[in-house]
């Protein structure tokens, strides 16, 4: 049930427990218990809306930043990653395989704000060797939700 429950919550975390219970063919108590356990075990870390940021605010900017970082004794990349994560402007921090080390998503009200944040805060941080900033131009799909209107329901209103 755990996998199915998470699949449903991934798409819509606002479903009521009783709705989830009906969909999974279990009792409401089972759902409550499982969600509590998932939260307790830090598997569910939060519930957030999928927002088309650029549609909400034309000037808003999100950037993906590739960070090269020198790993530290004992801590590896974690110390820098945790520090980066402390900034409220930072939405996500991930350690990556490949050409760079940390993938950082930064959100700001405008281009300048994000650019300054990268140059003054991230690039200047101890252990950060280099940054490479990529701005999001348009969102097509986010967390499984398609944003483009090509995928609207094209079925005709009348069909058997």
């Amino acid at each position, binding site marked *: 049930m755990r996998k*199915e429950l998470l699949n*449903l919550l991934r*798409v*819509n975390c606002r*479903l009521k427990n*009783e*709705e989830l219970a*009906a*969909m*999974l*063919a279990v009792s409401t108590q089972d759902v409550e218990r499982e969600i509590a356990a998932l939260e307790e075990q830090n598997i569910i870390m939060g519930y957030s809306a999928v927002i088309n940021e650029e549609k909400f605010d034309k000037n808003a900017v999100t950037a993906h930043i590739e960070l090269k970082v020198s790993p530290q004794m004992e801590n590896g990349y974690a110390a820098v990653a945790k520090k980066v994560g402390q900034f409220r402007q930072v939405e996500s921090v991930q350690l990556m395989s490949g050409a760079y080390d940390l993938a950082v998503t930064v959100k700001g009200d405008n281009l300048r704000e994000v650019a300054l944040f990268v140059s003054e805060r991230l690039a200047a941080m101890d252990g950060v060797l280099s940054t490479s900033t990529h701005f999001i131009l348009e969102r097509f799909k986010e967390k499984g939700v398609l944003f483009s209107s090509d995928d609207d*329901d094209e*079925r005709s*209103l*009348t*069909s*058997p």
Partner: protein
Amino acid sequence: MINYDKLLSENGKKIKPSGIRKFFDIAATMDNIISLSLGEPDFKTPWLIRKKGILALEKGKTQYTGNAGIFELRRAICTYMKRRFELEYSPDDTLVTVGGSEAIDLAVRAIVNPGDEVLVPEPSFVCYGPIVELAGGVAVPLITKVEDNFKLTPQAVKQAITPRTKALILPFPNNPTGAVMRRDELEKIAAVLRGTEILIVSDEIYAELTYGGERHVSIAELSEMKERTVVIGGFSKAFAMTGWRLGWACGPAPVIDLMLKIHQYAVMCSPTISQFAAITALSECDDDVKYMVEEYDVRRRLCVKIFNDMGLETFTPEGAFYVFPSIKRTGLSSQEFCEKLLKEKRIAVTPGDAFGQSGEGFIRVSCAYSVNHLLTAMKRIEEFLNETQSLC
């Protein structure tokens, strides 16, 4: 000036226009309708199948095929029928048709003489009666009831049989009720038909969409039934391929041969590109089908719960992707309910009487929509019920 009324065929004029279409002509004139009415999957055809279609086009597979359909596809259909439903057919007993609908039409035309009777369980998909009537036959409705979970009873079949009875349509899993005939229930129907000269036209277009763990059973699987059954299947529902227009019929050689003869005069062959893509559907897309079936299952349970919570008694469907709530307690007829709901809340559902008179007092709601779409729409139906109730 031509007198068109005189020009048009009596049989053609006599058949009733589809109740679905009539109602949705009204809906089509309105904006911002939230529909719960569609009888086709909301999923797109799995990408692998689409790619095979593109490949067929690239290779220039743009000619007619043999009348019965390409051999590889007929062989794939037989393998699939064996693998999924324990049915043994050879490619010679298999005809590829333009959707399941054409197969129904061909089967009926292959056996009906003027005045012959065909038993048609109701509520059911809208096409059977008119197809029988166009062939000059008489459609005899067999009413299925909510008390029987909308299953066909052997008594109903027995009572309706006359010397003129040529065929029984067996539309299960059923659109619109979601009823399924399990093996023991089919055995009872088979017992009535064994030893008769009645052909079963088993419309199994929703065969893949059955819920609750037990697989679909075809009546052709039961002893002595294969020789008197035409099994009809299709790609539209299970593989989300409605627009490809492809289905099939398997059955006794004499019936299939005559169906093929009509088919070759009427349409030559089924769409070639679709046929090539369909081979992939049958052999490589089990995971896609499984994913879609699980989705419908989840939505079906959600819809049943919400309608029952609203006070609209709803039978738990065991197959297809519809729920069929009773609206009797509102005191409105199906048509009134649907028109009022459409006008006041801009929600389109299908009136139950479109599927036969016995569907009166019910509405058909399709689960072929995303969960969020379903929730939004059902919320409006609940508001509608509360407002309608307070007026009473």
